[in-house]
């Protein structure tokens, strides 16, 4: 099967660089799949979980923040503000982050602060979701 070049760049590091067979990304209006030789495109990415099939039948899941994916000449660049593997996620920290955000949402806030905590809550929930799927010992 064909492959395409994939580069995942997070704001603090280059997360992945290499070949990929299939890629599923969270777009603002649902998930989008990318196969080799895709049309040139730029797609906005929402907070969510991206999946990449690097070798046959083996899917890697990544919790991503907002950003975009760019597909040019069978090369995909995923530019996101955060990218984390399930095993990198600290459940306790994510849970604390969620609680903090929820607490702040309940208090009176300016619109700007509201969006801010909303985004932070979305990131926390996303981390927890990915971590929960992976760890059976999580209660």
């Amino acid at each position, binding site marked *: 099967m064909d492959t395409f070049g994939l580069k995942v760049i997070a704001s603090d590091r280059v997360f992945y660089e290499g070949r990929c067979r299939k890629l599923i990304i969270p777009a603002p209006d649902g998930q*989008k799949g990318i196969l080799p030789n895709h049309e040139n495109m730029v797609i906005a990415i929402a907070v969510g979980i991206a999946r990449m099939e690097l070798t046959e039948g083996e899917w890697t899941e990544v919790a991503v923040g907002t950003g975009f994916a760019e597909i040019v000449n069978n090369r995909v660049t995923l530019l996101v503000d955060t990218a984390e593997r399930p095993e990198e996620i600290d459940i306790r920290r994510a849970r604390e982050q969620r609680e903090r955000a929820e607490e702040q949402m309940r208090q009176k806030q300016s619109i700007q602060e509201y969006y801010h905590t909303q985004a932070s809550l979305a990131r926390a929930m996303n981390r927890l979701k990915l971590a929960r799927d992976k760890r059976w010992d999580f209660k």
Partner: protein
Amino acid sequence: MANIREIQSRINSVKDTMKITNAMYMISSSKMTHARKKLADTEPYFYALQGEISRILRHMPELRHRYFSKRENVPADERKIGSIVITADKGLAGAYNHNIVKLEEEILAKPGIHKLFIVGELGRHYFAKHGVEIDMNFQYTVQKPTMHRARDISSVLIDQFLNRELDEVYVVYTRMENSVQAEAEVLKLLPLERASFNEMIMPLNMYREEIDLYPSAEIVMESIAPNYITGMIYGTLVEAYASEHNARMMAMKSATDSAESLIRELSIVYNRARQAAITQEITEVCSGARAQQNK
């Protein structure tokens, strides 16, 4: 000739100061290495963002977007100009803070309604004392810049920019040319300038790829531009942090050096004084003995 004990205590006090400057030198040098590594880690993301904006602009020259709006209808003396000023939390860094303050004062001299967002304790004190309008809710430290802090800062500024509370936003920071040279610099943050995404000049007969923007060019730009601004702020914070520690390192190095040369000079004076005292004592003893003999 100075008193021996005086010189001795002077040497000791210089030695104590030298211990402090030497420790600060080492702390700054380790902090600077950290900062440089951070900067190197974030560079690929930042350049890719910049490249992408320039690509979108190249494909959609007609794209009008709120981050690019120049607001030319606002006259020069009514423009609300915001500046993020990045200084250190303390002095002892040579001319580092002074250069930033001087540059900011040049901006303040220009027409317009100015508002300052200050990062760093020293700058906050300075401008508060000089009666310039400072956003007091804007309390961020320069120590250990993080992406999170950059996101906070950029959300404040983007919000004010979009609500027309600000028409232009600048960052005044220090950029590191190389490990010896650092220069205070003004960077225009908002509105984004088309010119700064230097468009590639391509030969006309070259095939240009067609790019589909999903869901639309506006939405893609909407998700890139704030990240780009955050990235710029993060970059300037890290750059300023690295330059601050570089400046402090150099200041402390020269302080340590001059302490060393001072100690060398003082110990020569001390030895001379000691010699003189010994010689004097010998002379006294000898002349006393001779006086006894002559009796």
